[in-house]
């Protein structure tokens, strides 16, 4: 029986499988497993790729740090966008540009995000997304609105009108700073940090406590306190995407990757870009999501498999399949062109927001962004609970974030980027 099993199994090259740690569950996790199985089936002569789910993005990063310190790191790991600066200075990665020939066909915004100052690609973008506004046509119509709000002022009045017409939950949010600080700043062309958003030097410090971000923060606090923008945990569904999908809430600011959960009611849902303040020019958005990082210290055959896998992920058929299944944006620019319009409104809106090659947003490139996001959210909750004023809360968040940036600068004073 065992011999039969051995005989029918695909015969991979001898050796321990190469580990690839990814950070998704649910339907996206299944899509990734399908990718791995297909890759292993197509390349039986290479060492097999073992794809292991490791929980959320934060958990995957923690596990990678612990594994790397004990010399048991995986060869390939999917880490989220804000870990980029932490990884660059870690000395633990091999740039993807070393393994794969460069190609012009990558989505410009994604390539920009994961390259260094010299334009060398360091990680291969994987789950590319950007923030968009989802709205329910029926709920808006019932409140007398015919268009999704395009400015924050219109968003404010839309929330009030929805509430006045009996919508108990005009909008629900998890208040993730990814959308409310980073994405909204990019779309309005405002830097989150000094020194070119951190690209020029490690002496960058946060600038979001002054400028238009203060106004949005104060608005958020006011909306929360008035019950116009509910915390997702106060809804019946407990989660912002679910609350919107079930019809409980009428507006949702979320990633383009949320589309597969909402596709069932595509007729009633409109996708539009993130609002900006009235009178401000709309600028290109930045990408979010995650990328695949290759770690050092692996045997040579591992890098052979990894290189083949990264090349496999760039194939058009594979990309089209993966992005249709998961709602993430495709990796190549030509694929992206094919998506304008059609049955993927979220992806189309996201791609339109990212802009073309000639006008790219400058992403935030500083260390300890995980900490900053936590500080920003803590201060938002403290301000919403009335413990401090919004201005004081934002100042505190910037101060705490700056202390972390100073620590980062001190720690990596002698380190060099790859």
């Amino acid at each position, binding site marked *: 029986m065992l011999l039969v099993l051995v005989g029918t199994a695909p015969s991979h090259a001898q050796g321990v499988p190469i580990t690839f740690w990814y950070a998704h569950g649910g339907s996206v996790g299944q899509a990734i497993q399908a990718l791995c199985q297909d890759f292993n089936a197509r390349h039986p002569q290479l060492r097999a790729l073992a794809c292991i789910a490791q929980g959320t993005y*934060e958990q995957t*990063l*923690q596990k990678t*740090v612990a594994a*790397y*310190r004990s010399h048991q790191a995986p060869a390939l790991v999917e880490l989220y966008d804000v870990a980029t600066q*932490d*990884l660059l*200075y*870690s*000395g*633990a990665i091999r740039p993807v540009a070393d393994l794969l020939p460069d190609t012009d066909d990558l989505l410009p915004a994604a390539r920009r995000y994961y390259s260094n100052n010299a334009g060398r690609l360091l990680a291969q973008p994987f789950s590319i997304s950007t923030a968009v506004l989802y709205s329910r046509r029926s709920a808006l119509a019932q409140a007398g609105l015919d268009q999704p709000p395009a400015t924050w002022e219109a968003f404010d009045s839309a929330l009030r009108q929805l509430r006045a017409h009996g919508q108990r939950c005009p909008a629900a949010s998890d208040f993730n700073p990814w959308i409310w600080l980073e994405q909204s700043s990019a779309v309005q062309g405002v830097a989150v940090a000094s020194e070119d958003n951190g690209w020029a030097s490690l002496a960058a410090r946060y600038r979001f406590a002054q400028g238009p971000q203060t106004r949005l923060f104060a608005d958020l606090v006011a909306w*929360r306190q008035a*019950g116009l923008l509910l*915390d997702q*945990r*106060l*809804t*019946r569904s*407990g989660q912002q995407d679910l609350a919107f999908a079930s019809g409980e809430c009428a507006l949702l600011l979320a990633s383009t990757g949320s589309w597969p959960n909402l596709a069932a009611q595509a007729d009633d849902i409109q996708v539009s870009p993130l609002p900006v303040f009235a009178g401000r020019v709309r600028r290109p958005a930045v990408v979010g999501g995650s990328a695949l990082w290759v770690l050092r210290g692996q045997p040579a055959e591992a890098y052979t498999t990894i290189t083949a896998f990264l090349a496999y992920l760039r194939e058009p058929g594979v990309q089209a399949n993966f992005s249709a299944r998961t709602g993430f944006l495709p990796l190549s620019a030509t694929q992206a062109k094919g998506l304008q319009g059609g049955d993927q409104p979220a992806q189309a809106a996201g791609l339109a927001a990212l802009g073309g090659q000639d006008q790219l947003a400058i992403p935030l490139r500083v260390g*300890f962004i*995980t*900490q900053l996001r*936590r*500080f920003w959210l*803590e*201060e938002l*909750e*403290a301000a*919403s*609970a009335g*413990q401090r004023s919004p201005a004081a809360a934002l100042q*505190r968040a910037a*101060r*705490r974030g700056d*202390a*972390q940036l100073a*620590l980062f600068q*001190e*720690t*990596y004073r*002698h*380190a060099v980027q790859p």
Partner: protein
Amino acid sequence: MTASAHFPQRYLPLLFALPQLLALLLFFYWPALQAAWWSLHLVPPFGGQETYVGLANYRRLLQDPALLDSLRATLVFSLGGTLLAMGLGLVLAACLELRLRGRRLWRNLLVWPYAVSGATLGVIFQALASPAIGPLAWLNQVLPDSWAPQTEPWQAMALLIVGYAWCQMPFTFLMFVASLQAVPDDYLAAAALDGATSWQRLRDIQLPLIRPYLAFVFVIGLLDSLANSFGLVDTLTQGGPGDSTQILAYKIYRDGVVGLDLAGSSALSMLLLLLVVALSLLQCWGLARRCTRLGGSHGRT
């Protein structure tokens, strides 16, 4: 009670204790020394050059506005949780003293919550605390937006204190049952003959006589709330709205493991260690003296 056992072998007791000592060394002393080392250096998360910086990490810590919030939250949580657990345990132990029917069954059942870990309880309480579908959701229908522990700091802290007291109550209950039983029956019988009610007997005889045990349980409860409450906080409030329930143990985790600030969180760990050591010393010196004094008076009757 005087010591009456005497082991003639010199090293045999040490051999018996060796496995536990090794476990202590591996899982407590080594990490503590590592944290002390890291608290004096700048530590890149992925490894690499660790720069010695002396007390700079501690200075940075003291300038962090969130440290004061965390200490305040720890104080409120520890005191509130311990006192509530002691109060519940005392009331239930006193009820057992009434010698009602089924007291053996109750004494058994009331210990079962100790088997539920803090993390499990946190998950359950989080579901129970849901403002939309939990058992307290009717509060929101009577008075809209009144029950919202996810956004109201004091409600989150109250939930955490109740959860912690639920976990700790079996321990305090058992301790108080044992200590109430140590009170000599003659006193109680004499008081009953004099016409004292059970409430008066509790207040005037039993409580004063178990005072050393009350103090002991209080300190042990405080130590436990400092060191063993991580699971409950992680599953129930995750540091709460803002950082209102971010107790010290949880802040160490968020800073170090999630935030990758290994040096800062190590310095914070040293702070927590100092706090625990201070409390233990307080218990050793302050209360042990009282124990022997009162224990002596017991022995004479």
